[in-house]
């Protein structure tokens, strides 16, 4: 779970490389950075322009400041439904990720620390489910939910969201790495029950890993567009992604600048969280790559 460690080169002067090789390396890097950043830059610029001028000019430089007025317009549209969508997103993702992480932690811990018949087959099944994308299960889920009348019910989003084969995979990897068998044995000798050992020893030692799993699940649920779009037709139940795509598809009914501003407002918290929690991301991806 440590930060990715770089290779340790002995210190050497910078002139070790030639100007030509530096140019050959830096120019493509700079061009690609522009490619990755300019859509986000455009979004920032457009969202801060006064309302109605989002698409004026070449779009790459600021022109007047109207961010607060824009957020006011966004709030006024359809009786503030935008904030309701944001709240829905946070609730679906927060509850789904918390419950899902707990389930994954327990299952991964059991797969790592208990010997039982069929364990390898079970883990193989979980791995296979990691490889088959969730979206393929969405339409069958929709058909099943409409068979049992669970459409337009938040449970239709939450129940599938708490199941994360990737989370189970990660927590098995982390449990193997960070919870020594001796600690569990010591707990048993002290007379602690299995669940108590898991809760007070296992969970504590896996904590940094659990944060990683929580993040992955949170973003996974936030990213899942098809499931809520299918099972929630009542727009007051929808998450912000579904709501904004609905506005975008409505053409004239909702002014396009509002879609720009809404996108900006919904993306900023994610970007901030992403930057603040970078090292947890890399921990999860490194574990994924070591498979």
């Amino acid at each position, binding site marked *: 779970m440590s930060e990715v460690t770089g290779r340790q080169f002995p210190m050497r002067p910078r002139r070790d490389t030639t100007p030509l090789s530096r140019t050959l390396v830096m120019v493509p890097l700079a061009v690609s950075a522009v490619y990755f950043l300019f859509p*986000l830059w455009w979004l920032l610029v457009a969202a801060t322009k006064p309302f109605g001028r989002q698409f004026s000019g070449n779009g790459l430089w600021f022109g007047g400041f109207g961010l607060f007025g824009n957020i006011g317009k966004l709030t006024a549209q359809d009786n503030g439904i935008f904030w309701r969508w944001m709240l829905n997103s946070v609730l679906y993702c927060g509850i789904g990720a918390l419950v899902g992480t707990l389930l994954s932690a*327990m299952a991964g811990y059991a797969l790592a620390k208990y010997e039982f018949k069929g364990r390898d087959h079970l883990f193989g099944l979980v791995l296979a489910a990691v490889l088959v994308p969730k979206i393929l299960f969405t339409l069958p889920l929709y058909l099943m939910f409409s068979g049992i009348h669970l459409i337009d019910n938040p449970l239709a989003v939450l129940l599938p969201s708490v199941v994360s084969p990737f989370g189970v995979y990660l927590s098995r990897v982390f449990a193997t790495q960070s919870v020594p068998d001796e600690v569990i044995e010591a707990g048993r000798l002290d007379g602690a029950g299995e669940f108590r050992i898991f809760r007070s020893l296992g969970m504590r030692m896996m904590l940094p890993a659990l944060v990683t799993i929580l993040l992955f699940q949170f973003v996974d649920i936030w990213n899942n567009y098809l499931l809520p779009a299918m099972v929630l037709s009542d727009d007051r139940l929808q998450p912000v992604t579904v709501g904004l795509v609905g506005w975008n598809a409505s053409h004239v009914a909702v002014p396009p600048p509002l879609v720009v501003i809404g996108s900006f407002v919904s993306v900023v918290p994610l970007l901030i969280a992403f930057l603040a929690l970078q090292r947890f991301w890399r921990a999860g991806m490194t574990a994924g790559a070591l498979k």
Partner: protein
Amino acid sequence: MLLFLGPFLVLFAAMYVAPIGYAAVSSLSVVHRSALGLTAPTKVFDPIGNYTRAFSDKDFTASLGRVALFGVVQVPVMLLFALGLALLIDSRSARGKGLFRLSSFLPYAIPGVSAALVWSFMYSPQSSPIDRLLAPLGIRMPYFHEGTVLWSVANIVTWSWTGYNMIIIYTALQAIPAEILEAARIDGASAFRTAWHIKIPAVRGALILTAVFSIIGSAQLFNEPTVLQPVSRGSVSSTFTPIMSAQSAVNAGNYPYAAAQSVILAVLVGVVSFVFFKLTGRGERA
């Protein structure tokens, strides 16, 4: 032990295994509507009816072909881009490594749908900053032509995922022992030769892994084309990808046909994953 695994397994069975089973069973009957639509549609048991229909449905087979073409072109382009970036950032001539790593990884933080919304403004004639920069040169980009719209979609996917793949490859590069690279340097190997003979072979595993995930990702193409659809002036049809096609069968009220399309897609993806899983050798990492 069961206490730990139980909750996950019950939900896993209910949310993964049951829907596929439900879809498989319901795909076995065919919806019949009377010619005038005066009576309610009836379901008739016909185990292969929906499947023969799917394979002779030009829209559905075209959507399968489209994502296959997408996978064959977009995945190698994106991975070469990611590999190139990882090698450049890893090279000793690079400055500001952290900054470049972060800027390419940043799009990963943007949800797929939001990324597609932002790019739809990059493409749309009313707002496109790209068009406005290129206008003085007399260039107009055909974002939404029949033949190019798939690549407009591919660009959004590439933008979102290159950094993610780059980080995985970069992490593998970092694991190469410093002595090996030092030895190559002392032997006078150029940066290109080192990259070609030492670094690229060393990240082979990471490349295979990212390729598998990217190929599987192509099969689920849905968010980006769906967001572009209203601004595409018709070039993104409602059956553009297999999942969109199944969804439009749902919208038409034909659930068994949608179920059959989902089952076909799930089986195809399962087979492709399985083959890759075997080809890349699970035993290697034991």
